[in-house]
């Protein structure tokens, strides 16, 4: 793969390996996947940090994300501009956080970002309703949605402000051991 044509320099690969949870092989595999998404846009040669971003619509079409109800939110949470355009580095970041090795705290931070639809740093009822509708194909009646969201806030809200702050969320995550294994996308 990398014999004839160098995709990354050794220094770059070192940096990737030091800063993410991936090995060089996986980095190369990720580059392959990224390249696959738009072969005419993404260069094979990354040694001089080419500036290239792929829009959300392309990334969301990856088989790993295609069926995920939160796909748009995932991509948006990791894109610097917030609109879902991902550079390769952000792409690597995304899968690094979603990898098996990432610690709970890191995953929790990004999960919170994903569920925070209106980016106000709280999971308010509106966010929860959106989450619930995404999770249940919007087949619950509005009353049921209301009830479930209320219960959720009631259970997880520690400081009584009727919305979930990151602290509340983290506290809840720390008691949900499955989160580590379910917030995980194999690449």
């Amino acid at each position, binding site marked *: 793969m990398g014999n004839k044509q160098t995709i990354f320099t*050794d220094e770059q690969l*070192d940096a990737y390996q030091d*800063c993410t*949870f991936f*090995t060089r*092989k996986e980095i190369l595999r990720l580059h392959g996947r990224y390249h696959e998404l*738009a072969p005419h846009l993404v260069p094979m040669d990354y040694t001089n940090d080419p*500036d*290239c*971003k*792929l*829009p959300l619509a392309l990334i969301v079409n990856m088989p790993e*994300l*295609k*069926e*995920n*109800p939160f796909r*748009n*939110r995932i991509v948006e949470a990791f894109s610097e*501009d*917030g609109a*879902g355009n991902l550079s390769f*580095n952000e792409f*690597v*970041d995304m899968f690094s956080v*979603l990898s098996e090795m990432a610690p709970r*705290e890191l995953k929790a931070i*990004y*999960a919170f*970002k994903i*569920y925070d*639809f*209106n*980016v*106000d*740093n709280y*999971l308010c009822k*509106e966010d929860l309703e959106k*989450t619930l509708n995404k999770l*249940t*194909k919007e087949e619950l009646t509005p009353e*049921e949605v209301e009830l479930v969201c209320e*219960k959720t806030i009631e*259970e*997880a809200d*520690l*400081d*009584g*402000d009727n*919305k979930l*702050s990151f602290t509340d*969320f983290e506290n*809840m995550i720390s008691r949900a*051991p*499955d989160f*580590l294994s*379910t*917030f*995980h996308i*194999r690449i």
Partner: protein
Amino acid sequence: MTSYSNDGFFNPAYHDSETLEIDRRSSSKNQHINPYTREDPAWRFDGADTHHSPVCQPSSADAGRVALGGWQEESWRRRDSIPMGVISNPGSPSWQHELTHSTSQINPQCDQSPSVRRPSSVSGNMTMRLTGITMNRMNMFPNTDPAFIEDAVRNEMEKEEQDLIKELVTLSRRDRIRTIRELPMCFEEKKHIRSQVLAFKTSKQSHNCTCFADYFENVTLCFRRCGYSIRSARQTLELWHGIMKEISGKFGTSVLSYFVFLKWLLMFNIFSFLVNFGFITIPLLVYDPSPNIPPNVSFRGLEILTGAGYISYTVMYYGGYSNETFVGLAKYDMQLAYFFTIAIYMVLCGIALIFSMARSFMKNFVLVNPASDKAWQLLCSWDFSITNERAVRQRKNNLRVQLKESLSEQAQRELLTLSEKLKQFGVYLGSWLLSTSLAVGCGASIYYLCQYEQEQATDAANWTLLQEAQTLLVPFVVSLMNLVVPLFYSLFNKFEHYSSQRRQIYALVVRNIFLKLFILGVLCYYWMNVVAYRFTCWESMVGQALYRLVIVDFLFLMLGSFFGEFLSNLIGTRLLPHVGIPEFDVARNVLELIYAQTLAWIGIYFSPLLPAIQILKFFILFYLKKVSLTHNCQPPRRIGRAAQMQTIFIAVLFFPFFVGALSMVAYVSWRLTPSEQCGPFRGLNSTFSVVGVWMHNLHEIPGSQWVIWIYEHIIESELFYFLIALIVQAITYTFWQISQGRKALIALLRQQIVNVGKDKSFLIDKLQTLQNSDPNKKSKEKDQKMHTKQCSDEQSSGSQSNSNAMVQALLARQQFEEEDERRSADGVPVPADISTPSALMQAMLARQRAEAWDEHLYQMPDNYPSSSSTLVQAMQARQRAESQERAEYIRTAPFSENPVNRFSAVSQTDRSGDLSSSVSSVKMQVREKSAEEEDRFQWVPSPSQNPAPPGSSALIQAMLARQQAQNEFDDGY
């Protein structure tokens, strides 16, 4: 947040206006007042939807890339052009994120106005980690001007980063890499920090001997790369990566956990096979390659099933090994090798199990609170690894059903009367009694069957085919029981109505464990007390029995999964559609694996090569289960807590099963007399006495006194074990106490969080009541004035009345600053301020420029002269007001975190202001508005990403902002 863009987009006049553009931003930036919240619900739709809006979305990927790439290049160049020393700013700060978010929704292509350009990310690195700190800082200055806060925050962040780098430099390499990896920043920032740290390190080292440092650096680099390539290689060797991904994509994590468990057990067996084969079998084969088989025994084929006859003379069983000491290049004592290999393997297995169990407990049982079920279902239960469309649909359905069920359950729960409770208790008791007696009955029947078989069996070397086939009776019955009785248990489970699904599963698991324990216990008892005294080479007989159990169990697993799942799938799809496709029962399948592994552990002494069979079995089973799963099964309907179940399974594997196998093997080697005729330990009283013999021989070798000392004073001394036991108990007790203390502490901390929340709401209430009681005499007059002002504002700029002038001005400054910088990046010569090192200086200069620019705008023929003039005036006014107010804040203890102080600070500024009475009415209006907004919509567009108590500070800031707006207004006119 995404909404503003559309609002602006559909109204071309709206975003041609500079002021309105700012206005729009200010509303997203402004935490307190959201002008659109109640006015126009239409703009509030999902962020995701915006991307599909036909007008704004770039039609092709190319277009999007060009536009974004262009921007990106600019920002890169901009970054390079600012010599900010250590801190460049690779990322947009997250508290500005919204700003960018809302603005970048507007496609540059659809919009010709320059105002749509992305606002500059002036400040330095800011990330989630630092965000937390920033929030705190922001909270500490609730009353102050955002520009001031911004500067303070930026400085704070720079300092924070410096601290981080310093901290990282002191860490060891491994820790450093781990810490960097776990920083919640984007890759660019991490890379930046990493290079800073590395640069710092090398600069420090260059003071020392450079040559040596270089060499050292090279060596460490080599080692690091070597380490990484080993990790890569290990990943290449990882078994079944693709299949695992496929399974998790189609069936989710809970089903995958079965396969992970299977793989884990497979690894155990591969290890044990390598150890046994390497240290016991290979030396024997090297020394004596031909097995000593009696001439009248030949291979007949049935041996593969029964393990008797031909195979019983090979190295498969204990009997095939000799007790000699091979003299080749070195002496190799077969007895010692056999003993120590088995012993060390068992100890290593135990340690590995304890460690993985402890780690799993640590990870999965931290503070598990069964109460938070709904929150869990909503926010943690979605399995991100699922990629299959059908599975996603099914999962969504299941979740919906589960949520509905739990809602209805809650309604019913209170209705249970005493008689119903008694009835339920009776059902539980009955089913427990029934299932336990079933297990006991199975054990007893197996015992009698064994006795019957023993009467039939003889010690002869060559059995007839019928005799050989008869030996399969016991394993057949055992496997049949293992297959059928659990079905009865599931049937019982249908009649008991457990309140929670978890209890139901646990009940099922416990019953199955009892059954398997009874069966294995009876078998072990039979082997140790009957077989051991009856046959000449009894270890081989036990080995054969275990071999048969393993093989027949394998056949039943195959048949069970093939016919059981296949047939029920057929029935479910063709004959009885209401039954449905069978679910994959993770608990039952894992217990089957545990049972199979226990057989292998027991057999390790009697048949050292049994792991080879086990490897084959698990390997085939993996593919078989995978095929059966994908063709016949559906994912489990109940979304259980898979991680917890997995921990339980590892614990179960360790506690009754591994410990049972270990004690069985230990008992055999300590107490039972090895057979006289065969095996490595022939002629000894017990297996363990081989160590005594070895010690005795060691006396003659001079250099080995310490080994003898250790043996005599540690292994053989009761006192040592007594002391060890005491120490372990003391340590355990201490840790137990510590964990109790921590539990209490956690409860305390949680209580504290609740208290803080209560305090917050109390203070807000208090604040409101105090405000309401404020006497405002001139309120009517001022209200009128307000209305006129609002009217004039609406005439001039549409929605300025709702916006916050202060934030507006700040934003204007930022925007102009960005524009200037962009121009500078584009090559237009700009005064020397670019080279000014201080960011603050730059900001100030930019502001001046912004003002100049604004005046320039003002002079230009404009469609909206009134708006820009208002802006200029507002900004000038703001400057004045700001300087006054800042002085005042400093006087009135503005930095205190105490909300009460904050409040007093506010009231003081209010009173000292020349518009105090007018302000109070305005204030009230604002407060009401913001309170309403908060209550009804619970949606505060906070740019500060502020997780800490927002209510009070937001309120105060809103009030202040309004006051300031009033000031500016009055000054302006």
